[in-house]
């Protein structure tokens, strides 16, 4: 998705948390989930995803463990923690406000 727009700073963490708020997922599942839900409009850099996961694990927003996939493959699953949900709520709300304001301003027409 090289032609998709770049991700706003700080939004990747929120998107990942949002994905994980459904269910525990491994890294590739998170990327695919975001690609599907954004219809290819959000370009997630696969490498950046893992940095974000490390960062959030360190901040106790998520935790991880090795599990088997439905196809019996070993994969590292990430799960959102209480602190992560709280983070998603507050940061998500403020991002939403920001996005709405941005959209409103862009919708203004001269005259």
């Amino acid at each position, binding site marked *: 998705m090289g032609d998709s727009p770049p991700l706003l700073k700080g939004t990747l963490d929120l998107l990942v948390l949002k994905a994980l708020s459904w269910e525990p997922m491994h*890294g590739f599942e998170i990327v695919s989930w975001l690609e599907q839900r954004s219809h290819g409009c959000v370009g997630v850099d696969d490498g950046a995803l893992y940095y974000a996961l490390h960062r959030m*694990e360190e901040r106790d927003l998520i935790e991880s463990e090795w599990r088997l996939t439905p196809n019996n493959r070993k994969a590292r699953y990430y799960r959102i923690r209480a602190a992560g949900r709280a983070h998603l709520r507050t940061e998500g709300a403020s991002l939403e406000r920001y996005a709405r304001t941005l959209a409103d301003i862009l919708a203004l027409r001269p005259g």
Partner: protein
Amino acid sequence: MGRSRRTFHLSTRDPSSARRDMRDELSFHVEERTAQLVARGLTPAAARAEAIHRLGASWESTEDRLGDSAEQKERRLNVRERLAELVDDIRYAIRGLAARPGFTAIAVLTLGIGIGANTAIYSAVDALLLRSLPYPEPGRLLDIVQSSSDEGPAPWSYVKYAFFRDAQRSYAALAAHADGQVILTGQEPERLGIEEVTGEYLKALGVRVARGRDFPPELDAAGGARRVALISDALWQRAFNADPAVVGTSLSLNNEPWEVIGVLPPGFRGLSGRADALLNLTARPADGLNEPWSLEFSLIGRLRDGVTVEQAVSEAGLIGPRIFEAFPMAAGTLTTSKEPSRWTAVARPLDTIRVASGLRRSLLVLFGAVGMVLLITCVNLANLLVARAVARKKEIAVRLALGAGRGRLVRLLVTESLVLALLGGAASLAIAWAGTRALGAINPQETLRVQGLQGGIGAVGFDAIQLDGRALLFTFGITVAVGLLFGLAPALGATRASLVGDLKDGGGAGGSGRRLGASRRVLVVAEVALAMVLLAGSGLMIRSLGRLLDVNPGFDGEGVLTLRLSMPPGVLAPDSMPGFYDRLQEEIAGVPGVQQVAIADCAPLSNGCNGTIMTFADRPESATGNAMVGVHWVSPNWFSTMRVPLTRGRAFAGTDRLGGPKVVIINEAAARQYFPGEDPIGKRVGVYQGGFHTGAEVIGIVGDVRYGTIDSTARPDVYISYGQARLSRMMVFARTTGDPSSLAPAVRAAVRRIAPGAPVFDIRSMSARVGAATAQARFSAVLLGLFAAVALSLAVMGTYGVLSFAVAQRTREIGIRMALGAERASVLGLVVRDGAILAGTGLAIGLVAALALTRVLRAMLFEVTTTDPVTYAAIVVLLAAAVLVATWVPARRAARVDPATALRKG
């Protein structure tokens, strides 16, 4: 936080495996992505390339960078988890300790005492023995003494110092110095501590004047130089109100003007630690300075760059004999042996003579003793903790069964003992503070001298003892060490417990319980043994103190007030002195409450009286060698005032005046030593002081008075009457009714009326002087006694604890025995025998250790050997009795066991 991560457990913990995991995770990701892209129609190779490309520049760089990131994350998480665990452990420990307030209080209290005492003694050891001297590069400072083959170390005369100074090549700066006292004359006469020094004194010490300038070098050339002085910051503040224009003004010392050329830096009081002024030594008249055997100066030198201490030491050894060759001893000069003595010079690092060796020894002994007290405290706590571990073994077994690691459990238990130790350490600060205050208040100079502990550098004093950062660091270190010491062994023991046995066991006599019981017995034996060592040491010191207090010093000081009086030179014409003494005594005798007044030049037990040689008119000098005697000036009634018995002949009379026939009184020791089998009365002797060398008649013999330290027997002494000699140095002895100290102001006022210009100082009762003479012995005995008492009570507590526990564990067994017909007496015997075995083993080990260790006390003991059988017998009986009392209570409890109840309960 960390806790939930533990429940949702990740198998990898160490950072390198985090890197491995990251690689696996990435491979999985690439495979998944590749499969997705292939499904969308890409060739497998292109799909894989695209998958890798989406992660980063290349597979290697991605793997590398994300590996780093994962590793770092893991490391941080680990640190956080450890901290969280620690907080958990501490919380657990505090909860546990709060649940047992009795145990906690005893532990904190005993630890507080043990650690506090150690900190206090450590502060003294640090200030007096360890801390580096307060001069730059103190290791480069050397003290140089002369040393003779028969007299040992001796000071220098000025000319010999000058010879050494000119011959040496080792020192960048070298100075002679001597401390003394002068009277600051003015409206309010004041006694000042001073040091007479040569020009390079400050340069050698590495001290710079705060204002003005140092001694100019040309003053060192000869005697009779200009009188110049450097004054201490304290004197500058006190006498000059910190006047910046002090330099160039004049200071009147002993009625002579001294030009102030500078002010010393704050806090610097010379090597003596008491100097308020440094005076130019060469201001003395040249003839005195040129007397080669007028030995009174010390030498301090700072090594030249590149010269080692060893080189300076060997150089001194080479120069010393040359000095003696240059200034041979005149025939008939002071010497105690008939062999001609050989002299040399000895250089030694200043640091090695910082305190008297006797003081060093007492401090180290006390340090050892407090260390032992702390060790007993630890053993006792270990003992209590083992008991606790036994009580908790089921809990521990459950934790082990649930998968807690042994290391984790040991950490938990040790955290508990560390928390306990830290609480004790905090409590100890109060004791350490009080202890250092008490030690710092010891007045060193006088107290040490009268006990023969003089020497050392005055600047290294007890007043430097304080609870400072170093002491606090020591406290912290020792606290942690103690926590590990008494916590680790029980923790290791407790977690070794067998799983199955303890889980099945209801808390009675289980396998591990018995093993822990055995380790407690070992601890009790150790406690008894340590207590034995401390009791033996303190017993010996107390016995020695008893002997010291029993010493008859030869006089009766009860109710006697003493004070010193210093007459500024030149105030009294020598011939008017006898009349002055009479007037002074009459005036003081008029004070209500004063019964008798006398004067003498030096107090008994002051260990600093002067002496000289005595010759005998009827014998050639070669026959006796030279007899050394102490010389004492007294007023005629001094003997009756001090209740010194006259054993033969007559005492001085008012008629023995200047110009009349010279008479002396000798003591019994002199009579014994110099007139064996003869009657000394009527014999003529020469005494080389006070003009008595021309001959005087012995008119009486008095009892021996101890003038040196209280533990040294009286030496031969000669008494001269103030009526016949001219001496401005004097001390007043007033026998009073009631408390002598209460008369001090009235007596002082009486002195002031007669001698307004003479400072009165050192007013003390004679009993206080006697007390000071035994102060160190009392100090050591009291402290060691205190430590031993603590040790004894801890040992008793330990024994009691172990035996009660054993009885509680064996209740069922005892019940069975009694049900089977055992007598109560035999049950009693069973427990008592148990205690006796513990006590006996401890006593035996302690006895051997005590015999070995108390040898360090030898030099501190007076008329008591370190193996004194009476002391040892008393200590063994005391300790055995105490331990038996501790066994009696549990034994009685065992004997009262009701078989029916015991069996039902089991």
